[in-house]
């Protein structure tokens, strides 16, 4: 217990450090004093500096925190639920479902109906369509799970649904024109910077609701560790548990996918890093650990993605893949225990 507290404190302090670094670090060089002034008094000396700090860097850093936490919690929930170390928010086809929703709007409607969306409205339409896409896939999986009790079958069906969504997206891409295709491809690359202040006011409560529901599922997740038969024999309402876990995962992963595009590997890697750090299978500890470690890893990814002075920014999911894959491989080689959670 005392050891956990030490690790948690260290992680939280590091998280704050990385958060501050993310505000200071960027393609445009701004003196430290001006950044502080912009944050504290809303005036960073130059108008563009104030704008960059308050309207770009701060929302982006907050989004990174939300995205990292949400994806990691979702990954933890899926890994425990399916008792599979390679499960993540994407294994069930949640992200593919969200992509399908977005593809319908960006590629389908715009070209078929001939209207063009712009500005804030366009972003909202994208968000809602992503939620609907993710929700649709999860609803389908949930309905199947009521009839089929075998959790592995459900996982395989999730992969199938995901593949179908991806296939439909490919068909839509094939038939769409260059301009629409480019806007869709930009979205699939994912970016934390897309989230402006007003979006944050939607993202924050969405992730908040997902987080609260996931807190309610902690005991259920712990019981699920022993498998469904044991969970049931210890009094768990398995269908309710599945519903709550799926629901919070779709809100968490769906919202992030909607706002930032598909971001991979955080969801798989972070729960493993947390298990290694805390050496426990207690979901209570792991869930809070995922919040802190996920946020931190996402901020680090964001730091890496920008090259100061050059004005170049790498797509965030490229960075998370480059960071996350070695972590997964390292875990496999280090203790070869990835076969169980």
């Amino acid at each position, binding site marked *: 217990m005392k050891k956990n507290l030490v690790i948690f404190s260290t992680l939280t302090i590091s998280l704050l450090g990385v958060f501050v670094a993310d505000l200071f670090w960027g393609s445009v060089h701004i003196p430290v004093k001006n950044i502080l002034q912009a944050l504290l008094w809303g005036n960073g000396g130059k108008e563009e500096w104030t704008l960059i700090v308050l309207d770009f860097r701060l929302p982006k850093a907050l989004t990174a925190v939300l995205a990292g936490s949400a994806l990691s919690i979702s990954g933890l929930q899926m890994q425990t639920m399916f008792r599979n170390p390679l499960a993540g928010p994407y294994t069930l086809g949640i992200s593919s479902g969200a992509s399908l929703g977005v593809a319908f709007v960006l590629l389908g409607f715009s070209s078929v109906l001939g209207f063009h969306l712009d500005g804030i409205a366009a972003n909202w339409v994208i968000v809602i369509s992503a939620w609907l896409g993710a929700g649709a896939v999860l609803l389908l999986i949930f309905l199947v799970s009521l009839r089929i009790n075998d959790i592995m079958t459900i996982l395989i069906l999730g992969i199938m649904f995901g593949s179908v969504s991806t296939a439909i997206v490919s068909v839509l891409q094939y038939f769409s024109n260059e301009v629409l295709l480019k806007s869709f491809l930009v979205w699939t690359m994912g970016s934390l910077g897309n989230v402006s202040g007003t979006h944050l006011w939607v993202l924050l409560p969405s992730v908040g609701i997902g987080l609260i529901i996931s807190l309610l599922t902690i005991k259920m997740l712990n019981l699920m*560790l022993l498998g469904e038969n*044991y969970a049931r*024999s210890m009094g768990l309402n398995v269908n309710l548990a599945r519903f709550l876990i799926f629901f919070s995962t779709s809100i968490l992963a769906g919202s992030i996918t909607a706002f930032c595009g598909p971001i991979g590997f955080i969801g798989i890697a972070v729960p493993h890093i947390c298990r290694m750090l*805390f050496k426990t*299978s*207690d979901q209570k500890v792991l869930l809070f650990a995922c919040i802190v470690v996920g946020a931190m890893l996402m901020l680090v990814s964001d730091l890496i993605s920008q090259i100061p002075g050059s004005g170049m920014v790498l797509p965030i999911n490229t960075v998370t893949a480059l960071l996350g894959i070695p972590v997964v491989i390292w875990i496999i080689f280090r203790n070869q225990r990835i076969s*169980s959670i």
Partner: protein
Amino acid sequence: MKPIIETSLLSVGYRNGTQTREIISELNVSVNRGELIGIIGQNGIGKSTLLRTLTQLQPPLKGNVLIDGKDIAHFPKNEFARKVSFVSTEIIRLNHCTVRELVAFGRYPYTNWFGKLTQEDELAVSEAIGMVGMNNLAHRHINEISDGERQRAMIARSLAQDTDIIVLDEPTAFLDMPNKFEVVHLLCELTRKKQKTILFSSHDLNIAMKEADRLWLIMPDTFLDGAPEDLVLQHSISKIFEQTRLKFDSRKGEFSIRRKPVGYCQLTGKGTPLIWTKKALERIGFDTESETGDYAFDIDVIEISHSLFWDLKLPNGSGLRFASIYELTTFLKPTITSK
């Protein structure tokens, strides 16, 4: 005494869409408090299905199960979890989980929504670990202990769950001989000392017969229920093996492979050496009791100054002396193949 478990016209099996596959039909049994019941039957005969139905892991096809006179379908989930606990065949593999943490899972029906363990819960966990004799292993990780220890830990978990009834599906399946006996003996002790009612399925008729108060023999079309000794006296046990090459000796209470004797030999001697010599001769195919009185050899087990010797007299009158059963059987085996 009022039975703790009762079934009335219970049919168990699987429902797959509109099709049903009934495995056990219209079963009427009752179980008294504090009984240890061994459920014996071939693979796929429906032992697990019956146990899963009794523990509400699957619904019955027809009929009811009553616990303390109340239909289990009407139990709230949490109340049922405080009444019946379950240990499955599944081997739990979890990284970073200690024995104590595993046992503590049993307290979940008693904890709040967050799963926080109170002092009372911690006490129950310690007591359960003590009952299965694992105090010294409490802080070991479950991936580092032996299969037998893990099985005992799972039993401790169900003890922590503090239920009157414990149901175990093949608790001895992956264990070696001493562990098999120890686990079943532990179950027996729990029924005596803690008044637990325990049902377990097993392939090990031998062990079940030695410890269980009652056996349920599940055979195609038949369900037999009784004390192990009753079943022996009713020749029920030997009936199970009628179709197989195994034979149950009601007098000795042991199993052997049914063989056709290759010959007969007359055996003389006394005590334990005589019994084991007989066993050895039976193993290589000789019977020691000929109905016609026609014997191929005479063997005499003798003891000379604390050493055992086996004197073999051949039909032609010549004699040989052996210093061990191994030497004797090695000499006799070629005579069988030449026949």
